[in-house]
């Protein structure tokens, strides 16, 4: 379950759904945030805390959150007047942005062409692509 207000991560920002903002809860790491607490836009079953100390887990959470966004996006394309779906979309889009910000800050760019920054060095070439031997997909074990 995910909260629908991310202003603990992005000061001054809140999503447009008007639901109460949850208090951030630590996941045990130094600066992670538990997105499971008290959400109304809840769809993530078995969601684990977003935690920058575990790249694979954070990536999995991004994939879950983005999948929700993809699915609501397609629904909105043919139901553009559904305000509840729109509110959910905006809510999850905010959460997705916060998760991706956390990932980019800790591990390197997710997107090319100026849509992500790369701190210190050009990590676009050093962080693995999804088909790389060291991407965590299990190919390195063969």
């Amino acid at each position, binding site marked *: 379950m995910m909260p629908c207000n991310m202003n603990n991560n992005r000061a001054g920002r809140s999503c447009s759904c008007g639901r109460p903002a949850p208090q951030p809860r630590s996941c045990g790491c130094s600066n992670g945030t538990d997105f499971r607490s008290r959400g109304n836009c809840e769809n993530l079953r078995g969601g684990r805390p977003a935690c920058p100390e575990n790249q694979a887990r954070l990536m999995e959470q991004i*994939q879950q959150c983005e999948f929700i966004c*993809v699915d609501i996006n*397609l629904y909105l*394309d043919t139901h553009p007047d559904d305000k509840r779906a729109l509110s959910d979309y905006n809510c999850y889009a905010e959460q997705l942005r916060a998760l991706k910000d956390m990932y980019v800050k800790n591990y390197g760019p*997710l997107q*090319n062409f100026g849509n992500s920054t790369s701190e210190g060095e050009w990590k*676009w070439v050093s962080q693995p692509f*999804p*088909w790389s031997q060291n991407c965590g*997909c299990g190919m390195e074990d063969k």
Partner: protein
Amino acid sequence: MWIYEKKLIYPVKNLRPNARMAKLIAMLLGGPNGEMTASTTYLNQRYCMPVGCVQATLTDIGTEELSHVEMLSVMLKMLLNGCSKDELRAAGMDGWAAEFGDCPFPANWNRESWTAAYVGTTGDPIANIANDMAAEEKARAGYEGVIRMCDDPDTIGALQFLREREIVHYQRFGEALQILYNYYDSKKCF
């Protein structure tokens, strides 16, 4: 334009070398009803659509299909990576491996290359969306056929995800078709 994002739409993990399964996955990628065909068709059809809802639907589903192309390509690579000569020969994939190694290539299981003749685009919006609904059902049937031939739970999980997406896309295209009918019914010329 498109922006690449360095991740898969679904976490494909731990696929063991399996030349027979690679052969079937190749069909889902580069066969007549594969993801290459779907993404190319939908993204082509966008340009002749008269309403924003349908332009958006084709743009977004076409983009999602590109992520499915990537997912199947990674699966194909994982399944071919580390296959023995004997396995490749037994599956009839030795020719593929000789030519492409473990690199994915848009071709059918019998190495029939993907062709633009598969692309179901006409200049007629209604015909296009009707084609897309059929394409999604054919793709769903294709996934079910491959899942029936599959024993590995990780491969089945990924294929089930893709199969379910075809069902959602079919639903959205059905709604898009109704939107087109409404548009033509209400269009007034003065």
